[in-house]
């Protein structure tokens, strides 16, 4: 079968990612919502995930959201990783700054 299988362990969602396609794009095309979608350009940090198993290539990502230490721990941006094998991923809890942002958002509603 063409493409690679991606399993999101946090939500249980599975989807196929074509060769050369980013994990986020593959997920979006199938109408899944198991990773938050932001800029799709490696800039906003919204789509951060942790890769637990599998090999992948990385495109350029903002260093504020993905410092080199994070890449070593498999913490990367779903919009900027391209699988080379099947992958198992999990959602990364939003950092405190992002949680604070969400609270601000709520208070605006």
């Amino acid at each position, binding site marked *: 079968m063409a493409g690679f299988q991606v399993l999101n362990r946090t939500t249980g969602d599975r989807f196929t990612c074509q060769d050369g396609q980013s994990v986020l794009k593959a997920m979006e095309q199938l109408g899944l919502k198991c990773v938050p979608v932001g800029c*799709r350009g490696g800039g906003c940090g919204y789509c951060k995930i942790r890769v637990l198993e599998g090999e992948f290539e990385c495109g350029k990502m*903002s260093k504020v959201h993905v410092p080199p230490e994070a890449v070593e721990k498999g913490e990367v941006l779903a919009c900027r990783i391209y699988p080379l094998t099947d992958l198992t991923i999990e959602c990364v809890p939003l950092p405190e700054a992002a949680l*604070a942002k969400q609270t601000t958002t709520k208070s605006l509603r």
Partner: protein
Amino acid sequence: MKKGVMRPGHVQIRVLDMDEAVKHYTDLLGMIETDRDDQGRVYLKAWTEVDKFSLVLREADEPGCDFMAFKVVNEEALSQLERDLVEYGVEVEQVPAEELKDCGRRVRFSVPSGHAFELFADKKYTGKWGLSSVNPEAWPRGLQGMKAVRFDHCLFYGPELAAVYDIFVNVLGFHLAEQVLDPEGTRIAQFLTVSMKEHDIAFIHHEEKGKFHHASFFLETWEDVLRAADLISMTDTSIDIGPTRHGLTHGKTIYFFDPSGNRNEVFCGGDYFYPDHKPVTWQAEQLGKAIFYHDRVLNERFLTVLT
């Protein structure tokens, strides 16, 4: 009150990959590359702009906005504004002429929301692109993509809007055209102008300092906005939302992202402003409609995805 600040002059945006960024801003937005410097920065302008550049791209490992600059009427006004800023307690930094090619000296300062701004009086006048200044044709041929008309404004996210308001209104002579007030009467969004436009710059309250929401480029018609949406699909560019209308300013708009995740807007229309206009107020309870007039619900991504 007129203090001599005339209009947005330029914005310097950080990008992760210069080649991809230049392709985006030229092929898709239709801006024109006018120069490059030995730091590797690329200078661009939109076709109706008379100065040499309005957008500077700098390659960096983190996207976002370095600074936005306003052009002032002349050197005397620049010196006076500089003194006024210092007197008000704002620290200013001198950026020498030619730090940006063909641009005169710039006065740089930061505001409490964590954003850097500049004032300058001189930049090389190159005239509208592709048109003569004598008996000009309606528009030049050879424009690409969305054919952006001009760099129009930026929206920034950060804290301490009241302190930012004081600097822009009391020191720099901007006017408050529109605002969003929460139930306690605190201003959580401010749209400021130095012109007849409904905004030349805007701020929305956000805990984290120095965040960049979007740089916006003007188009003439709703048909142009629709055509921009078509081009976004044709080029598989990351879309945010639109085409739609804002409640705030009533502009007709579409949002999308550059290849490094910086948000762009192209828009047309919108209200106008004269100094005798009182500010338009939107209530925070109506923020959904204020931002997206048709959907009338808040879009999480619009409020939280920033560079």
